[in-house]
């Protein structure tokens, strides 16, 4: 193979490369500090820098500073955009870099949980911020990914219009994500959650064609519904516990009886809508294909993690006892946690299976990746479920969930970016129409292989570790808890095989299949795309090679702060050998099963199976309502139904994709209005008389 000379069209490619190298240096500095090479921790804590700046009182205001920086970046971006595109992108990239630097540097403070900020009298109940290791792990992850995606977006948005507006809202979304991650009580998290929903709507709707509007409307309505569910939970918690801070409240909840299950259910479903949990995941596969790729990458990579983060925070704060109270495994105080945990495990398993099954049927690359996001979020939710179910010994599930959050963010964003690169060059998202791209985009192919191995859970890549841990968690649930979880484990294995199969399929059809397309227009160049791609791939490989790093420095500090059994942690987790032979053999078996499924599927055209329309969740769920709405006119009016043709056709439309629930609701309210409004208006004095009579008779009866 000849080594062709790479051209560089992108003017900013060199600077971006330097910036990414700088980011990697920061990462290595972080690794060095965390692993305490050359006893760097000691020297650092005695240094002047630490003493003067990091323990100063104004450090408490860091959360606000971190949230404000992207907002300022957004404003600067809009102002600078008139000058030149490169200047504008530079402002955004530097904003990301600045946030990244600050986040890396607050690691020592986060370890000790020093940063806590209270803002009383704002928003009636007061806001509070808090950076502990749980927030920090996701925070660090988000900053890195966001920074890389900004660099990627610089190159990608050259082929899209209205990119200034895109970057503006992207920066605002970043700010709200950071705020949500650093929140110290439910109200702050709710505030940033709602802001995130509203601003990210503008990202989804970027394309401004019909399907974008539909997907966007679905997205924002479901997001707002999730917000309202969380608001209800917030009100219930505030009223019953008196304090919204994320601290243990299980004693108060136990007194309330069944109310605690309602609160947890509301929290799980409210955050679960954002997290892509079944059955409320339906906005995900609609929103991803229509959003521009950087937005999809961040939506799948970071924003749905905020949903999962919310569930973890809510569950592990309100429903866990505090450390000094718990003494043993069989303390009845864990009963609530157990029941909730079982429910969440099954929800997670269903999500996993649903996601993978639907993903295998897709031909649009982005839609397939969206369904995989649903499926992987199912892994995370299962992990959370195990953490709650096993109660005192749930540390395994908890670590697995957080580890998978980190891993999934990395490889999913990478996969979306790869799909975006393919779309950028070939304008084609249907994988059956592509093929043979490995010749023209060799570097992309290489990175794809890394990401695919990551998501399939191949040893030496990052997915292997987290999937193994969650698998261990499930087996523990089976051993220590109810034996019905054996089915959960079987489904887990099948789903993992399905994941592997799906990516073999994608790789084969897009990159390796022989095809007549020759793709002459694809330039052989080095652009900001590639920089971002190799940076993420590098992180995946690093984690895969030394998985214990994340365990010991990001996850174990969190576990020490929760109420899990310290003996259990020491015995099983600290000493966890992820490279045990049994696990490696299981994983290789899974991958083998995946290959077999792929070959079978290709031969018998199983991938073109489609579920009948009536089996979709929406249809079953909404069927009674649709029937009612269709016949409402006849019920109200008898035979002289004054519908016009259009409306009636829309209501009897069986295809729910075309006319959604809300449209039908609007038409129904039109009917109600037409029937009743004028008669109510005409009957003015009559209503007065009737009401007066009722009230008087009612009250006199009580005398």
């Amino acid at each position, binding site marked *: 193979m000849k080594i062709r000379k790479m051209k560089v069209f992108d003017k900013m490619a060199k600077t971006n490369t330097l910036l990414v190298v700088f980011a990697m240096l920061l990462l290595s500095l972080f690794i060095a500090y965390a692993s305490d090479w050359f006893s760097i921790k000691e020297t650092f804590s005695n240094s002047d820098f630490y003493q003067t700046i990091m323990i100063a009182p104004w450090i408490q205001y860091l959360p606000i500073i971190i949230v404000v920086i992207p907002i300022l970046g957004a404003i600067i971006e809009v102002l600078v955009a008139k000058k030149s595109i490169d200047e504008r992108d530079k402002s955004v990239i530097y904003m990301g870099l600045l946030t990244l630097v600050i986040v890396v540097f607050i690691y020592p403070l986060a370890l000790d949980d020093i940063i806590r900020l209270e803002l009383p009298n704002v928003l009636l109940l007061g806001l509070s911020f808090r950076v502990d290791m749980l927030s920090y792990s996701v925070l660090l992850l988000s900053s890195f990914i966001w920074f890389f995606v900004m660099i990627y977006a610089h190159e990608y948005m050259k082929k899209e219009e209205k990119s200034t507006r895109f970057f503006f809202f992207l920066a605002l979304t970043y700010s709200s994500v950071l705020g949500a991650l650093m929140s110290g009580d439910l109200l702050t998290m709710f505030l940033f959650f709602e802001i995130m929903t509203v601003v990210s709507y503008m990202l989804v709707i970027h394309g401004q064609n019909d399907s974008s509007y539909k997907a966007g409307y679905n997205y924002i309505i479901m997001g707002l519904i999730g917000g309202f569910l969380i608001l209800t939970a917030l009100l219930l918690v505030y009223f019953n516990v008196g304090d919204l801070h994320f601290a243990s409240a299980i004693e108060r909840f136990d007194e309330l009886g069944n109310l605690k299950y309602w609160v947890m259910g509301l929290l799980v479903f409210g955050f679960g809508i954002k997290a892509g949990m079944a059955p409320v995941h339906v906005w995900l596969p609609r929103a991803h294909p229509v959003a521009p790729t950087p937005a999809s990458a961040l939506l799948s990579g970071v924003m749905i993690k905020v949903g999962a983060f919310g569930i973890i925070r809510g569950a592990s704060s309100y429903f866990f006892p505090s450390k000094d109270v718990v003494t043993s495994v069989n303390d009845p105080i864990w009963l609530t946690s157990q029941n909730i945990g079982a429910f969440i495990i099954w929800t997670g398993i269903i999500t996993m299976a649903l996601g993978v099954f639907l993903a295998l049927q897709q031909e649009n690359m982005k839609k397939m990746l969206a369904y995989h996001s649903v499926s992987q979020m199912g892994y995370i939710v299962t992990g959370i479920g195990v953490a709650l179910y096993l109660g005192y010994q749930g540390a395994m599930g908890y670590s697995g969930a957080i580890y998978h959050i980190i891993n999934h963010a990395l490889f999913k964003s990478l996969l979306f970016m790869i799909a975006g690169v393919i779309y950028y060059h070939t304008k084609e998202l249907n994988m059956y129409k592509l093929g043979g791209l490995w010749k023209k985009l060799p570097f992309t192919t290489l990175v794809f292989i890394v990401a695919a191995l990551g998501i399939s859970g191949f040893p030496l890549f990052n997915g292997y570790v987290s999937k193994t841990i969650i698998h261990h968690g499930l087996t523990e649930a089976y051993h220590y808890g109810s034996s019905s979880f054996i089915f959960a484990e079987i489904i887990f294995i099948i789903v993992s095989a399905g994941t592997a199969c799906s990516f073999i399929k994608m790789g084969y059809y897009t990159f390796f299949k022989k095809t007549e397309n020759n793709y002459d227009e694809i330039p052989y160049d080095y652009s900001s795309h590639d920089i971002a791609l190799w940076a993420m791939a590098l992180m995946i490989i690093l984690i895969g090679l030394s998985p214990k790093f994340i365990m010991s420095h990001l996850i174990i500090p969190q576990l020490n702060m929760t109420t899990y059994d310290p003996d259990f942690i020491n015995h099983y987790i600290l000493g966890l050998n992820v490279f045990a032979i049994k696990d490696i053999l299981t994983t290789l078996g899974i991958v083998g099963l995946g290959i077999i499924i792929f070959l079978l599927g290709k031969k018998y055209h199983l991938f073109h199976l489609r579920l009948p329309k009536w089996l979709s969740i929406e249809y079953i769920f909404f069927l009674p309502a649709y029937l009612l709405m269709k016949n409402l006119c006849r019920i109200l009016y008898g035979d002289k139904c004054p519908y016009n043709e259009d409306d009636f056709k829309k209501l009897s439309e069986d295809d729910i994709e075309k006319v959604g629930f809300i449209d039908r609701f609007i038409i129904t309210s039109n009917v109600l209005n037409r029937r009743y409004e004028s008669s109510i208006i005409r009957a003015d004095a*009559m209503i007065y008389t009737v009401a007066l009579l009722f009230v008087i008779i009612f009250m006199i009866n009580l005398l």
Partner: protein
Amino acid sequence: MNIIERILENINYIGAVALFLIGLRIVVLHSNLIKRIMGINIMGTGVFLFFVAIGNVSGGVVPIVGANPEGSTFVNPLPSVFILTGIVVVVSITVYSLSLVIRIYQNYNTIDQKELAELISEDNNEH
């Protein structure tokens, strides 16, 4: 006997309430605008009669200082003062409504509420 006695004692109040109800019935049942205005007037008259009836003290004398010796029971003058204001208010409202009726007639050529409703819904449907 008891009931008839009680009715006779409170005949003023019953009359006032009856007027109120008659007025209400007119407003509810008739669709001619002018009749409704008259109905409201009758309702108002009923309420004022009720007020005056409250002021009436049985066996009382005219409440004018100097016309009757101190110490005798006076009829309560306060409600009469109230209803003076009330009458003025109802009159002004009647004036206003009547001018509205004239305008409505000029524009729609009918003052029947049902026909008006149809004419208006036709107008709205043209938009």
